């Protein structure tokens, strides 16, 4: 028992401690992933044989390429908008304005509620008969027709922002708050205006934090499933396309779904590693946190 607490005891205990995590990892992630990869190379509905047909069919289909493009448009668009929304918000909340605790709580709301509920409420609010269009048609001059928001690309991007911007915002806020105020004071003493301090000191210093948070938003938006499933309409990103393959046709097309899943996972990993590299570069250029 004493050995248990000592740091440099045998590596056996470390292995023992890691055992449940590794069992979970291999049983619940690695093996299923491997199975998906194998399945994607099997002819549809068979247990033996190898083929590339599933990939060829998905990637050569214009619809398939559109699905990939759409997924990227949604993920990149919502990530960019989240950054645009989060940076001013974090700058305001840092100043401890009146009621800042309440606003901090508000920012966290989309994180803890199920995505489906958020999508449902947004659909009700932005719908043709929802409050947004009531306001538009009754109070805004020259607008007589309701604006289509639900089941459009821009609507979907906005729903994504609603649901996933807290990742960026919370990370930006925490890196802002860990920033040493004396650096800014030094800038101000040296004769920089507040705008110059913000532009040349604060923003470069928190860029790594912003980018690290936006990675989380991007990952969530790229893999989003529940929101586009009920609020996407005819716009189906990769995740929904995968689910459609195993839920709509009878019998379910597991191999086709697996091929799309492998493409999706691969794209995510490639994009993430590129993004991480640029984050590191930005971190190197912007100084340390």
């Amino acid at each position, binding site marked *: 028992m004493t050995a248990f607490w000592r740091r440099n005891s045998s590596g056996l205990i470390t292995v023992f401690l890691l055992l449940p995590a590794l069992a*979970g990892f291999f049983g619940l992630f690695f093996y299923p992933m491997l199975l998906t990869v194998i399945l994607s190379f099997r002819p549809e509905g068979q247990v033996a044989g190898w083929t590339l047909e599933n990939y060829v069919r998905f990637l050569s289909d214009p619809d398939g390429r559109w699905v990939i493009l759409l997924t990227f448009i949604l993920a990149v668009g919502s990530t960019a908008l989240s950054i645009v929304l989060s940076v001013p918000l974090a700058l305001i909340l840092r100043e401890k304005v009146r009621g800042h605790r309440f606003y901090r709580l508000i920012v966290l709301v989309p994180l803890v509620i199920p995505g489906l509920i958020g999508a449902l409420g947004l659909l009700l609010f932005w719908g043709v008969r929802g409050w947004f269009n009531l306001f538009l048609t009754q109070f805004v001059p020259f607008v007589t027709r309701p604006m289509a928001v639900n089941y459009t690309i821009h609507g979907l991007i906005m729903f994504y922002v609603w649901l996933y911007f807290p990742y960026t915002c919370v990370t930006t806020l925490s890196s802002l708050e860990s920033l040493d105020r004396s650096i800014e004071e030094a800038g101000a003493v040296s004769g920089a205006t507040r705008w110059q301090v913000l532009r040349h000191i604060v923003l470069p210093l928190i860029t790594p934090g912003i980018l*690290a948070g936006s990675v989380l938003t991007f990952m969530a938006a790229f*893999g989003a499933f529940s929101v586009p499933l009920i609020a996407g309409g005819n716009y189906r990103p990769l995740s929904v396309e995968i689910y459609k393959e195993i839920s709509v046709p009878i019998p379910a097309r597991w191999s086709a779904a697996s091929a799309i899943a492998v493409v999706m996972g691969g794209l995510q990993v490639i994009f993430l590693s590129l993004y991480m590299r640029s984050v590191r570069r930005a971190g190197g250029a912007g100084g340390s946190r």
Partner: protein
Amino acid sequence: MRFARAYIRGLWDGRMILGYTLLLSLTVFIVVPFLMIALRSVGKGWFGRLWLPPQLTLDWYRWAVEVGNIPEVMKNTLIIGIIATAISTVIGIFAGWAFGRRQMPGKEVAMAIVLLPRMIPPITYALGVAKTFYTLELVDTYLGVALAHVSVCAPYAILVLSATFEGLDERVLEAADVCGANTLKRFFYVVLPLIMPGILASMIFTFTHSYNEFTLTLLTYGPHTVTLPVRTYLAVGDGYWEITSAMAVIMVIPSLVILAMIQRRAEPEKLVGGFKGV
């Protein structure tokens, strides 16, 4: 150019008003959807261009409870959530202790591997999980659905707990030793109170994840293990918006309670689970 500069300067001068406008519109943007759900769930005959429902009713809740079978669904969700939280916490405590307190070769690599499920969209391995569970006959059992949730929840628990254990101050432990505490005493009077907030935070977060988990549940659920998100999704598919809204209200209340707990007890950054060294 001069005009643009003057414009930006004007914006900068009016930043107080702009700031409050931003905060206010953000609050509206985030809160109003819930208001819509709440109104829809008690409204009757709310068609056409009306701002508020003309009649109020609690019928939709009755329908949700009777037809939607909400008590049963709630029971399923809680049981699955508790199992998933228990398994994830055990995994998280063991692995977190190894990552946070012990030296080992290739720690970064091991950590990256264990956290890998967070980098891949859940739907991609959910397919494999579903296939595996079909062969193991784990589909439509509490344990099966909970295990599927563990694949999402455990990385969070590991992340939060390894940070907690890493923050445990070695000097405090030494001080306990110097003051003559034996291992058991030290564990119960020094270590446990120090790590308990972290463990609680991890449990709250994993439970939240399990409670909200939709993707993996949708691929592994069955008639006996319908959880609240799946039930809501099925109701959306049926097209009864009022009943769906009533279910959503029932479902969102525990989430808000959890949010209050998080605000009180833990730092929100942990909920986000920022990346370290990836």
